[in-house]
């Protein structure tokens, strides 16, 4: 960094900065592992939740649990690495559902292919706990990314994959592909996306509109 630029940064007055409502919003980053891709047939194997306030990740308050499914599908092991013996001592969804709901309640859900996770939760709550679950506010980091790119004049017609977005933000975590790690990386990405959204004066209403997604495949 050149000398001039540096002194400009030091001189920058932050006091007068307008605080965006995005900085105060409570978010919850979510990631699931499932026995397959069909919410009608498949079940949840693991849930990871990481709360955030604005750009602060409350890493210490993360939540992670394995869940014992009714029917284990061996084919999915290669995607998530979770074995039947891992989940056999784990609680059933009915046992953790209440806590999960409390952690999510009132917060904006953030994820990668968030709608997919929401579908699974909806089904699980409905079938296993006879509860209605339909979160109003959620956003998908792939959609946010596509919006940010469009703002820069780049049209996106395909779905951005997770690794590409990670690369865009210079995030290189070595541990991946368990729900908790992926949720953490999603949080790190989202943190930076918020900062860019604020640059465009986006509000929480904009975020929910931008981050919404109609299909999950």
């Amino acid at each position, binding site marked *: 960094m050149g000398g001039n630029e540096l002194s400009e940064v030091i001189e920058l007055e932050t006091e007068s900065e307008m605080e965006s409502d995005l900085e105060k919003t409570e978010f919850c980053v979510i990631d699931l592992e499932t026995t397959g891709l069909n919410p009608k047939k498949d079940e949840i194997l693991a849930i990871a939740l990481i709360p955030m306030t604005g750009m602060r990740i409350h*890493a210490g308050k993360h939540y992670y649990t394995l869940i014992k499914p009714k029917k284990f599908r061996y084919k999915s092991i290669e995607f998530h690495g979770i074995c039947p013996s891992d989940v056999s001592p784990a609680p059933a969804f009915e046992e953790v559902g209440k806590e999960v709901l409390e952690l999510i309640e009132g917060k904006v859900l953030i994820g990668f292919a968030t709608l997919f996770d929401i579908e699974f939760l909806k089904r699980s709550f409905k079938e296993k706990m006879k509860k209605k679950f339909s979160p109003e506010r959620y956003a998908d980091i792939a959609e946010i990314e596509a919006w940010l790119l469009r703002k820069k004049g780049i049209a996106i017609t395909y779905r951005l994959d997770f690794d590409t977005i990670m690369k865009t933000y210079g995030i290189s975590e070595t541990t991946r592909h368990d729900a*908790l*790690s992926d949720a*953490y990386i999603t949080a790190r990405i989202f943190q930076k996306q918020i900062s860019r959204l604020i640059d465009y004066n986006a509000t929480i209403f904009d975020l929910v509109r931008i981050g919404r997604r109609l299909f999950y495949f």
Partner: protein
Amino acid sequence: MSFPPSHYLSKIKPFSFLSGKEIELLLDDMEVSFYKAGKTIFKKGKKINRLYFVREGKIGLISDKDLIEVVFEDELFGIEASLNGLPTEYTAKALEDSVCFELKADRVKNLISRNERFGEFFRKILSRKFYSLLKLYDENRVDDLYADSVINLARKSPVVIASHKSIRDAVRLMNLHKVGSVVVVDDGMRPLGIITHSDIVRFVNENISFDLAVKEVMSSPVEAVDSEASLMDAYLKFVSKAINHLPVVEDGRVVGLISSKDLISKIESHSSLLPLSKKVMRCKDIEELEGIFSEIKISIINMIESGFDYSSISTVVTSLVDMILKKIAEFRGIERKEISKNFVFTPIADFGRREPSFPIKLRFFVLVKDDLQPLLNEFYEDVRRVGIELEVNLCYGGEVDSFLRSCVNTSNALDFLDSRYLLGDGALYVRFREAVNSYLSNDLAILSLRKLLSELELSEYGNSVESLTSFVSDCAKSLSILLGDKTSRPTPERIKLLSGVIIPKNLAEDLREAYLALKKIELKIKLTGKDKFDDLVVKKSSGVIREMGQWVETNFLK
């Protein structure tokens, strides 16, 4: 379940000293925050309850619009304020888009009290014991090995002989006890001299009668070591004097004997310098010296990697280089009386105070009476050939005073303060020292302090390690002169003498620690390369040096 932040932290000092469970404890309350470039993280004078670890980006620590430090990736800030519950001494601002891990201070405190090495790290930072901090991270902990006292390794019943006994008696004793040396003592067991295997070989070669009394032929005075001294002291004596046997004394009486073999058997891999000094003594020509010099360099790298401290390394290097110079003088014949009475060869500046830096560049002051130029030039050439850089200040006998006066305005007016006799005529050396002492005035010292401060840019973070260490040693020089002490000494010794007399005790202690740490890092940079941890020590140490600069300014220049 591996949570990326714990996975990440577990690889970085000092967090790498924590167990998996302890890291979980630390992370229990951790937050990961993103700060846009220009964003203030906390303001000066605020109390903070978190320590900040930079995961990504760059953070500037700013005081009164001056950027006093830049914190890079994988480094901590806010340590002092958060752990001591004091207001921060600076404003922290993101210089780039940055991500910080924010650790709860009370969690860290808890771990400090339960994990020894983790605790040690923070205690040393808070008490500004940077040099010991540096040592804490030397994996080999060789100084522990060498810290043992001599008496624990020495042979307890030394073979001794009275001074009037014959060489033949000495040989019998050596054979009877299967030892390589006998210590010659008086009635009170005080050591007078020593006779070793190699002496016997020499006696035979020189046809010396075995009926002669040992007092006639012994090496005397004898080098001895105190029983409470550390193995390091013994080691340094072995290397710098190129000897193999040291009587161990207690209240002046011989109580044991330690040999270089005893030492080697205890600390094998680290003692590669021991045979080197003997190689120098035995060597026959310049080519051989060239080879030995490059071996010395490798040995020094080994010493650094084994965790030797800076003082030991510099003692060893200085004596080896001295030996090499004397050897070259011998090859060139300039040590012969009729020549040596006409000049004196005096190391000055850092090598003069036995604090060599790398690559070895020696500054010399040469005082000549006669025109010895061609002979001395040959000597310089040989020295350079061996691999030692030379800078010579040549002066003719009658002109010392005017020569020194002409140096007043040059950048290194005080370099002559540190000098010692190496080769040539002793009387000439005394004359040189007298001239130096009368020319080094208080005015000159103040002048030099003023110059030093103008060079040390108080707010820049760009000071090199070298400029920091030379600031400390030059400051110590000037202050010593003001105290009336014009003796050549290594910088840490000077700081010790100034402590409590001129420099406040706390500051002096911090300064000494910072100096020794920086000197070691300086060596590392030149020879092996430094790591992230060294950067932290450099930053913390430069804080102390800044403080020293401010202290000098208020106390001497206002």
